């Protein structure tokens, strides 16, 4: 029963997921919408509580056992409590009963998001430029035939999109574009065909209960 019920549910939801793609009738679409949106949202709400519980538990444990850098766990817990209180009682943009403004200084959830989360996310995103440079250096070291080919094609493509490329040869930009449009797209499509089959096979295996690793293994 412990594994039978999830398998039955997966079978029903999986078959419905396939049917809704082919049947535009509102009866099918509404049922699918109910499962996909309403039911999933309820599940997500419960899962979020479990997730936050896990986050707090891990950090409380870290503080309790005084593990390395345990002080930072206090930062997380305190900030978690403060933002939760502001969000629950102050509303998203300060419309709640809790005052979220002192003079011209606002600290409602939206302000915190715009001025703390967004810049921090942007900082992480900006780091990509440096990571990309180090990855490019690693990839372009001509240690093998494939790496040499990669280096050569990357060099042509980069030169082709620069004004300098056109000065060197008027054919260079179109050759660079050909590399992008033909060998590059051919490789990508090859991968995508394989992915499509993989998705089809995985979906079938899960719907029919052949693949049960997600239940923790193939045993009964």
């Amino acid at each position, binding site marked *: 029963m412990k594994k039978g019920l999830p398998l039955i549910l997966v079978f029903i939801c999986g078959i419905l997921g*396939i049917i809704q793609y*082919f*049947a*535009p*009738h*509102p009866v*099918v*679409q509404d049922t699918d919408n109910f499962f996909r949106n309403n039911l999933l949202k309820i599940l*997500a709400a419960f*899962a*979020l509580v*479990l*997730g*936050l519980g*896990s*986050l707090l*538990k*891990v950090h409380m*444990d870290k503080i309790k056992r005084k593990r390395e*850098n345990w002080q930072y766990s206090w930062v997380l817990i305190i900030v978690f409590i403060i933002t939760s209180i502001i969000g629950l009682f102050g509303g998203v943009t300060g419309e709640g009963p809790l005052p979220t403004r002192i003079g011209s200084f606002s600290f409602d959830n939206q302000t915190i998001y715009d001025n703390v*989360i967004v810049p*921090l*996310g942007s900082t*992480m*995103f900006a*780091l*990509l430029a440096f*990571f*990309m440079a*180090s*990855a*490019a250096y*690693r*990839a372009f070291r001509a240690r093998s035939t494939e790496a040499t080919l990669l280096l050569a094609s990357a060099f042509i493509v980069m030169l082709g999109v620069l004004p300098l490329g056109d000065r060197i040869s008027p054919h260079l930009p179109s050759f660079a574009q050909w590399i992008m449009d033909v060998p590059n797209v051919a490789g*990508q499509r090859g*991968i*995508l*065909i*394989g*992915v499509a*089959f*993989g*998705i*089809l*096979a*995985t*979906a*079938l*295996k*899960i719907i*029919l209960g*052949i*693949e049960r*690793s*997600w*239940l*923790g*293994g*193939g*045993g009964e």
Partner: protein
Amino acid sequence: MAVILLIGLIGVAPPTHVRAYDTPDDGGGSIMVEWHLSQDDAILDGYEIYRSNDGDVYEKVGFIGRNRTRYEDSNTEDGENYFYKVVALKDTLKMYSQASQPVMSSPQWFDLPKLNILIACVIFGGLILYFVYHARKGKELYIRKIAGLQAIDDAVGRATEMGKPILYTTGTGLIGDIATIASLNILGEIAKKCARYDTQLINPHLDPIVYTVAREVVKESYTQVGRPDAFDPDSVYFITDLQFAYAAAVSGIMVREKPATNFLIGWFMAESLILAETGASTGAIQIAGTDRVPQLPFFITACDYTLIGEELYAASAYISKEPLLLGAIKGEDLGKLIIGAALIAGSIIGLLTKLPILNLFK
């Protein structure tokens, strides 16, 4: 000036042959209206579409520019009769067409243009099931070696010998992404190895639902190999649902905990390079896998092994060596063979039909 005067005197020609029909292959609530262009189409502002329930009182439901012959009224009640008129509009001049025949919209049970997709799914699904059936009967199946998956045992063994943990991330995908589900399948198999060798597993998550499922997967895997006591509930945990906060947190784990092996398997976006490069800088063996084509070059560059596209989906079968799952891989391969043959045949036919010699037979 003379033209304007003439238009003012005799008006403009109305559109003709107005035809309304239920929009095919839809979920109802929509009627398609078609007409022949007005003879004065070139000087018109456009066409107004009018609708009536009884054929007497019409209300405007839409406007479309000139040189157009079709309008979709997507605001109809199914099962109710509608009449349509199309009006040629020039400034304040309006010329009404004849009313269309009454029409009613209705929802369809099958989207006919998707029939080819259904047939393809049935054929390829049938192939997969055929090989699964053969595998069930005990037929030996040969599966080519996948370097990334063969390295898993070594990677887990290395972590065990070094006494360091294994980091496994399913990426930033949600539970609806099939790559995440494939990743969870692989996680189950790796968790079994970790349980057998008593190696610490670290499994941080971005999505609370994926976290909940992953926790159960890991727990069940430990139980499957008879080590439920070795399962640490805190080894699988939720961090945040923000992409770059997650990337920062996992990078931090890589630097602080220094795992011997990093598994980056699932659905990734821009964070793929941040994670892969950070992991590479710590000296860990890295096995990555994703079906996201734009992220693959980053993984190939920064990781020791990369599961490319379909290999991600074949991984759980490959690791578990379960005959039924291996049968499905065989079916996939045959499907690809058919597609490959079709592509080659199509290319040859396409080339042949463009040969100048064929013009002689025209």
